C-alpha cells in the first residue's frame, strides 16, 4: 500500500506542469482555432485552402511526431540557416507550442461546427438592424455557438490532458515523466504507473464534472 501511495504522491508532483501546458494549449488552441475556423468559412479561396491544409496536416499526423519535429528537428534547421547555436532551453516551450497548435486544429473544427449550427435567420435579423459583420458575430452568433460547443470543448480539454503524456518522451517533467523517473529508480514500475493513472483520472473526472456544471448553468440561462 505504501508503494502505491508513494506512486500517487510522486506522480502528483507533475500535475502542475501537465495542467499548465493544458491551460496554455487550450487558450492558444481557442484563439488560433477561432481564426482558422473563420478562415475556413471565408469567401476567399486561398484562405480557405490554407486553413484546410492546416487542419488536415495537424489532425492527420501523430502528436508524438509533431513533438519530436519541434523538439529536435526545428533546432537543427535553425542552426543550419543562421549558423548559430540554438536550443529550446526549457522543453516546456515545445509543450506549449506543440499542444497549442495541435489542439487548435481540433478546436477549429469544433468552433466551425458551432458557428454553422446557428440559424441563418439570426444573421439576417442582426444585419437588417444595422449591425455590421463583426458586431453580428460578437453579440449574436458567437454567444449562441459557444453554448453549443462547450461539451465538445470540454472533451477536447480532457483529451489534451491525456495527450500531453507524450511530452514525457522529450523529458518534460509532467505526471508521466515523474512516474517514469521514480519507476527506474525504485523498480516499482507497477506502483509508479498506477499512481500516474490515478492522478490523470482525478484530473479528467474533475474536469468532466466542471464541464457538466457549466453546461447545466448555461442551459438554465436560456429559460431566464
Amino acid at each position: 500500500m505504501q508503494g502505491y501511495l508513494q506512486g500517487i504522491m510522486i506522480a502528483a508532483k507533475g500535475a502542475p506542469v501537465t495542467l499548465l501546458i493544458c491551460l496554455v494549449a487550450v487558450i492558444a488552441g481557442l484563439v488560433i482555432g477561432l481564426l482558422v475556423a473563420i478562415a475556413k468559412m471565408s469567401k476567399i479561396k486561398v484562405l480557405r485552402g490554407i486553413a484546410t491544409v492546416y487542419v488536415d496536416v495537424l489532425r492527420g499526423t501523430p502528436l508524438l511526431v509533431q513533438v519530436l519535429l519541434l523538439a529536435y528537428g526545428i533546432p537543427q534547421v535553425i542552426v543550419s540557416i543562421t549558423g548559430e547555436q540554438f536550443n529550446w532551453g526549457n522543453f516546456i516551450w515545445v509543450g506549449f507550442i506543440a499542444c497549442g497548435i495541435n489542439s487548435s486544429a481540433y478546436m477549429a473544427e469544433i468552433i466551425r461546427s458551432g458557428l454553422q449550427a446557428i440559424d441563418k435567420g439570426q444573421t439576417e435579423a442582426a444585419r437588417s438592424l444595422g449591425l455590421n459583420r463583426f458586431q453580428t458575430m460578437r453579440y449574436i452568433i458567437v454567444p449562441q455557438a459557444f453554448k453549443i460547443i462547450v461539451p465538445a470543448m470540454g472533451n477536447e480539454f480532457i483529451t489534451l490532458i491525456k495527450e500531453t503524456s507524450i511530452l514525457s518522451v522529450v523529458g518534460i517533467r509532467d505526471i508521466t515523466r515523474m512516474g517514469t523517473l521514480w519507476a527506474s529508480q525504485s523498480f516499482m514500475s507497477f506502483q509508479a504507473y498506477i499512481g500516474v493513472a490515478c492522478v490523470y483520472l482525478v484530473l479528467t473526472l474533475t474536469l468532466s464534472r466542471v464541464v457538466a456544471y457549466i453546461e447545466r448553468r448555461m442551459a438554465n440561462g436560456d429559460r431566464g
Partner: protein
Amino acid sequence: MIEVKNLHKAFGKLEVLKGITETINDKEVVCVIGPSGSGKSTFIRCLNLLEEPTAGEVFLDGEKINDPKADIDKIRERMGMVFQSFNLFPHKSVMDNITLAPIKVKGMAREEAEAKGRELLEVVGLADKADSFPAQLSGGQKQRVAIARALAMDPEVMLFDEPTSALDPEMVGEVLQVMKELAKKGMTMVIVTHEMGFAKEVADRVLFIDQGIIMEQGSPKDIFENPQNERTKSFLSKVL
C-alpha cells in the same frame, strides 16, 4: 421613398426576379401578394440587400443602395425588417433584443434605449414581458417583439416578409392589429402577405407578383374586385 428599377435576381440558373420596376412612396402601405415561389419574398429581401440583386438598381431616398460604395449597414438602420420566422435572439431577454441595436449601432445610452423599449412594448401590448426570454413567448408575442425591435431603430420604412405565415390562426389577429396601428401612424410599409382581408383593409396599393414580374397592381378595390390580368383572376379565385 424606395425606387426599384429593372430588378433582376437569379440563384444560379434559376431566375426568380425578371425585371421589376416600382416606386414606393413615403407613408404608403404596399401589400405584395402572389403564389408561393413567385418571387415576392426575394423582392422584399432585395430592398434591404439581404439578397444581392443580379441586375438593376434599388434607391432609398435617391441613394443607390446596391452600389459597392454604399454603406449598407447605415442604410439598413433606416429600414426595419420583420421575418416570417421572427428571428428573435434566443439568448437575450425581450428588452435586450429591443435595445441591442440602438445601443451598439446608434450608441444610445442604455437608460434611454430601455425607456424607448418600454414605450415600444407598450405599443405592441407586451409591457409585462420585458424580462422574459423568447422561448417563453407565444408565436404572436414573439412577432410583436420583433416588430418592436425593428421600430427601436426609428426606421423610415418597415419591411414585412410574411409576418403571420408561421403563426397559429388565433394569433394572426394580434399581429395584424399592431401593423394596422403602425399604418395609421403613417409608417411606410411593404408587406408580403397571404392575408387578403388585411391587404384589402390596410393597403394603399396592392402588387400582384407572379413568375418574377409584377403582373398587375392597383388599389385594393381594383385588384380584389376588378382584376384585369388572367393570372390575378385565377390566383384570387383560389385564395378568396
